[in-house]
């Protein structure tokens, strides 16, 4: 009886702790929502002011541009770099050894995980989608085939980014510095993924740069399909380019990983 009561109070404390942990996350959920609304509002008012005395820019009207910007905002998780953090923390804590010893493909396992995280992150963007519709007048495209073309392209683009991130993550085998690398990638991707400006508005030479590095494949390319900036008839060509990107990045990242893993120095653990 004594021990039962003791157990109850100990484990009861753990039960009681969970709502607090949950609340802590919940606070961040609401705060994150407000912060996102601020960022979204700035983008919207900036673009409205830009269109003040002009009808179209590079062939895009205000509505089409706003739709692009808002959808890019909502689908931003497609460019997230979780693999870099994941491999980084595995290296730092030394757990990477266990993963490498397991009889499964390490890259495959990470890909599956990233897909799971992507699903979660997209689900968490739902409130922002509602905000975009209610506050900023976003209208989702109604055409089913557009959505299908987008979904295929988004999945392909996400895969491109996965292998590209894998490639970058291999750098941490040499530098053992993860945080700085991660922030640097995120900062560059902010512009280079096309989340701030539709690609068609960029000067030729910038567009060439943006299209010869992978960030845009995950965001600007699929979102352009979804908003109709890239016509639906172009979809097969877009997919093909993305598949070529995947092949290239997959090869490069696998090779780099093979070389880099020999350099492995685990920081204690």
């Amino acid at each position: 009886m004594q021990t039962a009561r003791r157990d109850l109070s100990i484990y009861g404390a753990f039960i009681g702790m969970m709502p607090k942990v949950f609340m802590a996350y919940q606070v961040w959920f609401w705060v994150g929502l407000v912060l996102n609304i601020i960022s979204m509002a700035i983008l919207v008012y900036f673009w409205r002011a830009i269109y003040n005395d002009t009808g179209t820019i590079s062939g895009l009207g205000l509505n089409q541009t706003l739709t692009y910007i808002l959808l890019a905002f909502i689908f931003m998780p497609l460019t997230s770099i979780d693999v870099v953090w994941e491999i980084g923390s595995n290296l730092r804590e030394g757990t990477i050894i266990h993963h490498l010893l397991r009889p499964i493909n390490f890259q495959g396992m990470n890909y599956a995980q990233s897909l799971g995280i992507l699903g979660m992150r997209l689900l968490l963007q739902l409130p922002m989608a509602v905000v975009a519709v209610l506050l900023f007048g976003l209208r989702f495209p109604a055409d089913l085939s557009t959505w299908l073309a987008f979904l295929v392209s988004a999945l392909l683009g996400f895969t491109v980014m996965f292998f590209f991130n894998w490639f970058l993550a291999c750098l941490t085998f040499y530098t053992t510095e993860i945080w700085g690398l991660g922030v640097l990638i995120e900062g560059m991707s902010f512009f280079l993924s096309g989340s701030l400006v539709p690609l068609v508005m960029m000067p030729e030479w910038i567009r060439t740069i943006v299209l010869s590095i992978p960030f845009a494949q995950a965001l600007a390319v699929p979102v352009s399909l979804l908003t109709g900036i890239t016509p639906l008839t172009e979809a097969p060509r877009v997919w093909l380019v993305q598949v070529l990107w995947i092949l290239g990045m997959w090869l490069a990242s696998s090779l780099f990983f093979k070389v880099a893993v020999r350099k492995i120095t685990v920081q204690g653990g």
Partner: protein
Amino acid sequence: MTRYLNLYWYFLIQRLKVLMEYRANFILGASSTIVWQASSIAAVWVVMQKVSNLNGWNYDEVLLIYGLVTLSKSINHMFADNLWTLGRQYIRSGGFDRFLVRPIDPLFHLLADRFCQDGIGNFLVGMTLVIKSSIDLGIDWTPPRLLMLIVGVVSGGLIFIALNLITCVTAFWIVDSVPITRLVFDNHLFAQYPLSIYPKVINILLTWIIPYGFASFYPASYVLNRAAGDIAWLGPFVAALLLFLGYRFWQFGLKYYSGTGT
């Protein structure tokens, strides 16, 4: 006063010694902020190549606004970044009690404890933008305009610090104050662009409630001879009032503080 200046100097030297131990982090920290700012500015540049007029403001005028708020932010970032971590690093761990037994003002101790090198990146970005834009705009730096530049940046920096102070004091009650501070702090993003592009509500918010407008839009308006410019001279008073409120709130919170028992 001189005693505190001397003390700050000693704290700074100690901090720099620590930073020099991790030189790579030092450089990465400062440059990461530069990359983020470069992304936003690149976007503005691309768009304003196509349309050179953002509600009556041209590209360089927008850069001046952007640069001023970034400079103000860097003052807060370099010298008062520790306010963010009051709850997480000092109160939760009990480390804050250390400040209370020392013969100096605990708020001074908290601020002096960590000079934040990441702010240097923002400082460089802000300086570059202000210099670049004022050269391209051919601004004639008369004494009143030069004075306004300094008044705007310094009172802007103090407004950043005061708002962070007010929100961070909540850590004495709720321990983790970061969400609340973030909620207020992120409103400064509005002030990166001319306030005139926003609806009236946001203008009132950024002028009278969370007055980041005094860090960028109003000083820039004065320097560029715009209609809303004269209000910029209110900046120092707004900053002083907020700092006064912040310090009183801090003292009130300190009285309440009893440690977390760690």
